[in-house]
């Protein structure tokens, strides 16, 4: 057992660590470094300019717009997705009432679960392409085509400043709900049926069952869901890049940090500035995750 132990350990670790170190760790370290430079990518002279990039960022209207959009997504993406997913998961798992002392799911619950989950398998970029057609402002769009049938519309989903971000949010919710239905269903499935039985015997209604039994016992899963969806709310790059008018438009009404980073890096070659935005995005994400876990902390209920 002893012989060849260290050569083995090193042999197994060297390739993964080398790949990871080169493309991930080195990249993240350099990002922090670059954020303090004015590097434009092509010029050989790079100089450190301290916090100038961050100061510039602070006075950048587009940046603040992007932050506002993230705040909106951060509130409504998790809220809508979790409420819908919890609702459907509850219906699927206990909607069928009880028989022989066991609460049952509604008839066909497996089929619903399979269908609901499917969008999760589609790339966000593909979903974005599908919905940019669904939202099309003329009669070739799914929604406006239907509205036209009843003589209404057209609604300019993506071209209307006040509607564009909400339209994109709806697509995010559309894609996410199924995943969380499956996740919450698994959580509800692991709650012992005796608890439901006991509560039902005590005369608890379905509403009471949901709020007093299901919800507290699912708390940890809900926390995870909130963090995941929050992190997704800091992304949204694929949707905005593909769906929005003039990338981030109309008039900056849908832009997000990811898109601004991409544009500053690859369209304007503002490598230092783009990296500074990346650093801000990193701290926002970390702060959000830490805050969520802290604020929502509760003692786990042991079963």
């Amino acid at each position, binding site marked *: 057992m002893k012989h060849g132990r260290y050569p083995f350990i090193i042999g197994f670790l060297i390739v993964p660590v080398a790949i990871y170190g080169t493309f*991930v760790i080195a990249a993240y370290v350099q990002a922090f470094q670059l954020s303090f430079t004015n590097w434009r990518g092509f010029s050989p002279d790079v100089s450190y300019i301290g916090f100038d990039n961050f100061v510039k960022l602070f006075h950048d209207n587009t940046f603040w717009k992007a932050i506002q959009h993230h705040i909106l997504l951060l509130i409504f993406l998790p809220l809508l997705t979790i409420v819908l997913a919890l609702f459907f998961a509850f*219906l699927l798992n206990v909607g069928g009432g009880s028989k*022989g002392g066991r609460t049952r799911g509604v008839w066909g619950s497996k089929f619903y679960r399979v269908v609901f989950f499917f969008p*999760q398998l589609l790339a966000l970029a593909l979903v974005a392409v599908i919905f940019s057609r669904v939202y099309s402002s003329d009669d070739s769009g799914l929604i406006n085509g239907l509205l036209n049938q009843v003589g209404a519309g057209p609604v300019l989903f993506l071209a209307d400043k006040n509607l564009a971000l909400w339209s994109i949010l709806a697509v995010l919710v559309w894609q996410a709900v199924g995943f969380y239905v*499956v996740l919450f269903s698994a959580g509800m499935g692991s709650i012992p049926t005796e608890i439901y039985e006991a509560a039902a015997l005590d005369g608890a209604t379905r509403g009471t069952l949901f709020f007093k039994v299901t919800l507290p016992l699912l708390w940890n899963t809900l926390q995870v*869901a909130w963090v995941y969806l929050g992190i997704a709310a800091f992304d949204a790059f694929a949707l905005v890049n593909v769906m929005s008018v003039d990338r981030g438009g109309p008039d900056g009404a849908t832009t997000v940090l990811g898109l601004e980073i*991409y544009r500053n890096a690859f369209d304007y070659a503002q490598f230092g500035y783009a990296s500074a935005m990346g650093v801000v995005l990193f701290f926002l994400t970390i702060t959000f995750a830490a805050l969520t876990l802290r604020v929502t902390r509760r003692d786990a209920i042991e079963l």
Partner: protein
Amino acid sequence: MTYTKTNGPAASYTGSRHATTTAQRDKKELKLFSSFAHVALAVWGLLVIAPLIWVILASFKSNTEIFTHAPFSLPSKISFETYRTAWTEAHVGRYFLNSVFVVAISTAGTMLFGSMAAYVLARYRFFGNRFIYYLFVSGLAFPVFLALVPLFLILQNLGLLNTYTGLILVYIAYSLPFTVFFMTAFFKTLPNQIAEAAIVDGASHTRLFFQVMLPMARSGLVSITIFNIVGQWNQYLLPVAIMQGAGAEQKWVLTQGIANISVSAGYQANWAALFAALTLSILPMIIVYAFFQRQIQSGLTAGATK
């Protein structure tokens, strides 16, 4: 044994009239609730399926039909011409095969290197073990956007920008944190006795890993392989950042290619071909999902339940 109120035997057991009426009322309420549940679930199911059906229907229509006919009207004739256009002229065929090629190699690489690292980190004690483990896991906390610019520069310096090698290595690198995190936990749960027996029989560390431990870790490997295939197949940001420059269109992956068809399509665009391209990229997912839906569901939710 316990009985709930809605249960017939429990009600008749007491024999009182009051209990029977309660049971009936409960049954009625249950029926109402159940049909309400069905309506709500069916509505969402419809919302999920409708856009996909609409895409498939539209892929058989002409441009005029798409603009003038009702969204869910049937195509006037079934013709695969749009599919031919999408596959060859819009290069969906090439993008598709590029994606298959890249994801096949990068997922295989991710699983090989990820489980090698995870195995050593889970089952061997050595100096720096914890440090390397946390180095890998810390990758979960960083948004990829932060690495975008440096990643571009690193690949440029290595001459890997706009190459499959570069893209594959980056896919592997960014899949390692979760793979190592999950597989380390998994390898820790495997029993020691079998490993010890294999050592007594004179197996080397390497043989022990490939012939004993990997087969034992199969269920974990399957979950994470699915997780990585789906994640890498759907990746959009990394290929968009890496596969740019002269001749890049030849090497684009599916997500990138389709997004580009959609974005660059103007008013004279052939929408039917775009719908055909979408159908071509959705259908394989539906087929694979139909066969492996249980594995796929557990694979994709593996991250959230750990």
